């Protein structure tokens, strides 16, 4: 449900559309409509919806009225803070960001793997919708055109946990797995297969495990993730160039 500030209300009719995004920020390409156009209605109930466990539920309402488009603030489905708690969370994040930037962190860019969008016309199996090319130039192996949304800038602290170069099973090639623990702010929330780029060295990492999260009333402040370093021939190293080419 939503309300309109009648003090500055534009001329009728008002058309509303409920939108959802996996990140809560970004351009219009990350937001997609989940409701039909609602004319002069202030609520919407979805009848059938399937969710996974990823906390990627950010909503807003788009209003078209008087020839202009308006957007509501973005809300999160998992928690809410009162004003004091919001200020506290903001201060905690600010101080942590200061520590990252001044002392112990490096500049990073975050690429969010797309979970919805235009299906890739090149590499998806027409029947099973499986991705048949993990280095597809159109979808970067995700199955959705463009493949990754971003980059979102930030800072993070890296801790190397294990490096082990050895023969793979059956001596089929060499495995060189480099595992790192990364600490960064809680926004945007990371999920598996998101990509982190270390700006200075251009090393790229794929997120594997969300190990721990510091939260206030389910609003993440700091997140700790485990990442694997990607080798230079993988398609994630083309991110940035891929997005521009689209």
């Amino acid at each position: 449900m939503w309300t309109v500030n009648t003090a500055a209300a534009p001329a009728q009719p008002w058309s509303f559309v409920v939108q959802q995004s996996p990140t809560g920020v970004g351009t219009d390409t990350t937001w997609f409509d989940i409701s039909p156009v609602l004319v002069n209605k202030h609520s919407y109930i979805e009848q059938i919806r399937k969710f996974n466990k990823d906390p990627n539920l950010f909503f807003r309402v788009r209003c078209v009225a008087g020839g202009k488009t308006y957007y509501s603030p973005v809300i999160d489905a998992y928690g809410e803070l009162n004003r004091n708690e919001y200020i506290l969370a903001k201060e905690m994040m600010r101080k942590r960001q200061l520590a990252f930037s001044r002392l112990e962190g490096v500049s990073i860019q975050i690429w969010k793997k797309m979970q919805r969008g235009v299906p890739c016309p090149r590499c998806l199996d027409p029947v099973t919708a499986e991705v048949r090319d993990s280095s597809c130039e159109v979808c970067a192996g995700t199955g959705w055109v463009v493949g990754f949304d971003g980059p979102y800038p930030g800072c993070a602290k890296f801790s190397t946990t294990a490096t082990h170069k050895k023969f793979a099973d059956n001596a089929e090639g060499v495995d060189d797995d480099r595992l790192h623990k990364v600490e960064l702010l809680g926004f945007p929330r990371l999920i598996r297969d998101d990509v982190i780029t270390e700006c200075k060295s251009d090393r790229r990492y794929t997120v594997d495990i969300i190990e721990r999260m510091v939260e206030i009333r389910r609003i993440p402040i700091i997140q700790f993730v485990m990442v694997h370093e990607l080798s230079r021939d993988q398609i994630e190293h083309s991110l940035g160039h891929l997005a521009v080419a689209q």
Partner: protein
Amino acid sequence: MSAPAPIPEVWNGGDFPLAPVHTGRRTPIILRSFFVELARQFYVDPAMQLSPLIKTWSAPNDKSHLWIDVTGRWVDGNVSRRPALLVDVGDLQFSPGGVQGIDNRMGSNLARGEVYQARVATGSVVFAHLALNDAESVLYATNTLDFLDAYAYVIRTDFKFERFQARGIFKPSMRKDQPREWECRVQVDFQFQETCQLKLEAPQLKQITLDTGFPAQQFNMT
């Protein structure tokens, strides 16, 4: 694959010339190279592939989009190299090819001091297709299976295999230590017969002639 050129004799300046081991026999080292080269020839032409999504191989191997190599090779540098096709030649089992089925003796020519031997070798080779998701590994394995089915007769006749046929294609499996990698294997069974001719000169062995059925590679070592 054409027959290699005759091995030249290397004269050490002494009484007896030296020559390297004959490379016409299908020893494991030859078989590994043979199957790797076979796989590379399958994937060299983009027009011959099952799907336009399949990457092709081009020399040199470390700069190719598709990595085709033997297993057991330690690679430094960029170790990801996916997709990949790795060739694994299995055990070679020998069975006697002699007339009595007991040993390898086929016969002898006492006047010339020659003994003829033959044996049957049976083995298998696995083409392991590695990719970053299961559908991709199955796609490459299916492509290889198509080539093997199509060229099995040609390979048998041209390269003197008594048997060369695909035994099976196995369902893709996730690799244990690499959760983002999938593997789909195609297994091929083969069998061939090897013959050789030993020339003995009493009282000591002075001359060895190895004839493996490729006339261009026959040579004498005295």
